[in-house]
């Protein structure tokens, strides 16, 4: 099981809870995690990635074990601590409000 932390703002815009557990088959990549998240919560489609290019939206970032993995190839394999559920895949929205 992969644990995913969803930005709190998306709790208003979708029915996704703050923490989600997902089955994602290996290799675990950012795109595969987000694919699985969108499959479980279709309202999220297009919110984290551009629907046409599938590129991460500029004000969204991904973290694993406190490391920013936003700028890795989204199809590259993520750290093993993610796959065994020890660390969650954090999706973070840029801070807004000033």
């Amino acid at each position: 099981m992969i644990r995913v932390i969803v930005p709190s703002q998306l709790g208003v815009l979708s029915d996704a809870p703050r923490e989600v557990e997902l089955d994602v088959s290996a290799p675990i990549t950012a795109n595969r995690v987000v694919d699985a998240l969108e499959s479980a919560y279709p309202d999220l489609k297009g919110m984290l990635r551009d629907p046409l290019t599938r590129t991460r939206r500029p004000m969204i970032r991904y973290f694993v074990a406190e490391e920013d993995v936003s700028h890795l190839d989204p199809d590259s394999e993520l750290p093993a601590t993610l796959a065994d559920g020890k660390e969650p895949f954090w999706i973070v929205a840029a801070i807004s409000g000033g």
Partner: protein
Amino acid sequence: MVNPDLLFVAQANDWFGQLVHRSTDGGTTWEQVGNTLNYDGETGTHQWYDGTPHPWEFRRIWHIEPSIHDENVIYAGVEDAAMFKSSDCGASWQELPALRNHSTGNSWQPGAGGLCLHTILQDPRDENRLYIAISAAGAFRTDDGGETWLPINKGLRSDYIPDPDAEVGHCVHNLALHPSNPDRLFMQKHWDVMRSDNAGDEWVEVSGDLPSDFGFPIVVHAHEPETIYVIPILSDAYHYPPEGKLRVYRSRSGGHDWEALTAGLPQENCYVNILRDAMSIDTLPECGIYFGTTGGQVYASTDSGDTWTTIVRDLPKVLSVEVQTLT
């Protein structure tokens, strides 16, 4: 509107992109519907502010317009300027690409708010005739449901562009028509209030004695096809009413002659703007008029504009005011 319980809201932000919500019960409950609006085919470029080519990029929906002919048909005008249509009540969207691919498209340039398609009018007699307006490309008409588009900007004069009488490049702010005479169009342009009596083929200026002919919204009275309303704004650089007096101007003669409507509106120290989609009418016998301001007030008149009251205040900037007559 075919179904008064069918409502749409489009919100967009830099975090999560475009969202579209639909209510089928008059706003009691909402559900998310299609939010993927992909341009059809190669997108090419339009002009950027400095005249250089700039790739066409979807940013957001500016205006959603349900069809008055078919409950399942919804139109959306977007930035960068393009027209989309849904034939399944918002579940999915397809571009009407002939507009963006018009031979003048690569010369279109954004206005201050972006290259946005912000106005969609429908001819009640003919579902294939639509009018749209783009800042700062101008007005266009289709007579075949969006297969082809004709620029309808003859008679517009914009002294702020190199060719003041150009076929496109005019910053049209808003269009309006009355359903009983849909060949007569009214326009609030960046500067100038205009009228066309032949479906946009030619325009004449009807600004008359307005204190400023800059502004954003324009609406037509529900029962008097020649009675129109604008809210003058000082200039493109100063987005507030002349002299700080919030005045709606009414013409009962289709333009040229205007009267200021001030009863109940602030007549000193008022420095708000009124955006293009923030003015609407109802269809009650006396015709109610409503508008919202960038200062968060919503003003209403129940007597065709003679007197006004503040019905809401302290909202955020009011972007859109839509009215539904429920009697």
